[in-house]
């Protein structure tokens, strides 16, 4: 049994493998990363860093929609 850690995504509790990165989580959710930005603990994570951003217990993630209307 793989160890998991608790995080929240858009306010909902979720368990992810202890070694998961942000890229792993986004792939698991099935999000098209070309239409979102990701906020982790009140800070935008650059898209270039998703694969090198390990998730930590208690991380609060929010998906920020890419919008462009005026």
């Amino acid at each position, binding site marked *: 049994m793989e160890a998991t850690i608790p995080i929240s995504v858009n306010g909902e509790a979720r368990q992810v493998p202890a070694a998961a990165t942000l890229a792993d989580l986004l792939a698991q959710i099935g999000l098209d990363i070309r239409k979102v*930005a990701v906020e982790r603990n009140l*800070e*935008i994570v650059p898209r270039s860093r998703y694969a090198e951003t390990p998730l930590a217990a208690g991380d609060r993630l929010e998906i*920020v929609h*890419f*919008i*462009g209307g*005026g």
Partner: protein
Amino acid sequence: MRGMDLDFSDAELHRYSRHILLQDVGAVGQARLRAARVLVVGAGGLGAPLALYLAAAGVGTIGILDHDALELSNLQRQVIHSTARIGRNKAESAAETLAGLNPEVRVEVHPRRMDAATARDQIPRYDLVCDGTDNFPTRFLLGDACHLLGRPLVSAAVLRFEGQLSTFKSHLGAPHPCHRCLHPEPPPPGLVPSCSEAGVLGAVTGVMGTLQAAEVLKEILGIGEGMSGRLLLWDALDARFRTIRLRRDPACALCGEAATIHDLSAHAA
């Protein structure tokens, strides 16, 4: 303040009295507003309240750029226009309203599309640029052009019940991020809907355009905490504002250490 013209007419003193009363504005701040040149790109849902508040505030020169003709479906949110002006160019319609609101300000009308050539010609003529456009290609053009031409960009966006706002001053160097630190590339066509496809609550454009105006005035006056390095998110349904951190991305193609974007050649001429 050297060379700042502090000579106000009685009518100006009266008109701007509520500003001049503010300790952080005063006559000096009001003179700064009068000396400022701001370009508003898009006379739509965001540009309407934005331009109205900039003109009312006495921003001395306001450029309004929009190539579109006013349509009936615009009037649910674009409160600078009027029903009688349907079919007219929106930059011209906006300028007419602004002239009626405050004849002390000069309005420069640009009834044309924002493309790379226009960006190169017009952006350097202004101190600050506001993005109130309705499409990703123009948003990326403006973001790239403001970074490369050295102008601050106060940018807002809306869709459905949501609004976002930030200020980009990456031309000043670290720690200021650029628009590509948030979204490296525009989404492929069709992936993210526009307001004409998905809708937008009219009042959401009003709130976000008005917030944009407040940020522009703060930038000109040099007061308060600017929005560079921060992203404001508003959801009208939750009635919840959040402000989160946006850092400069060292790997950014526009402002990063090994930037690959050095001109506007990737954008439509």
